[in-house]
């Protein structure tokens, strides 16, 4: 089946969960990514239950944050 991941066509042999897809995409820290499936942002708790199907469009990106934390 064919899906799109971050705009790139990806061919999968079978349906995968979002968690499995992130592993396949070499995402080192899946707990720190946000995932959008067909335009809807997924709750992180659902990554292991949500199945990616033929034709789906998946976007993922890392959490971006930080800050000076402590005043010098």
């Amino acid at each position: 089946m064919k899906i799109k991941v971050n705009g790139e066509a990806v061919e999968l042999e079978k349906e995968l969960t979002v968690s499995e897809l992130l592993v396949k995409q070499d995402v080192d820290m899946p707990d720190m990514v946000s995932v959008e499936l067909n335009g809807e942002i997924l709750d992180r708790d659902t990554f292991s239950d949500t199945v990616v199907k033929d034709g789906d469009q998946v976007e993922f990106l890392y959490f971006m944050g930080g800050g000076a934390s402590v005043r010098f």
Partner: protein
Amino acid sequence: MIIKLPKELYQKLLKHTQAEFPNEGCGLVAGAKTGDGIEVKDVYTMTNLDASAEHFTMDPKEQFAVVKEVRNKGYDLIGNYHSHPFTPSRPSEEDKRLAYDEDAIYFILSLKDEEPVLKAFSIKKQKDVTQIELELI
């Protein structure tokens, strides 16, 4: 590697972070590879969900929208920026701890002195910081 930053985009970034002061301002940076480095093509101002002088968190919904816009323009998302209102332009311990994307370039603009200071860094393994040469063009 050299990052070339057009002066008008630096001004956009600067104005945004000054407008957010004393809170930290943050945004995303799009660019394109050149022969000897990367040229910044646009900067995208983002909401700091923390609305804090000491922290920033980007809104994933805004991030996804920008990522698609950048892609449609044929550019790459090369990294992000944020300001340090009261501290120097260098990654804090929190910046390093939260630097999950090893491919990203982290631009930090210090507003602590009268003259703003912008520097660019790569951060590997959430601890190894390397400053990247930055040239205004």
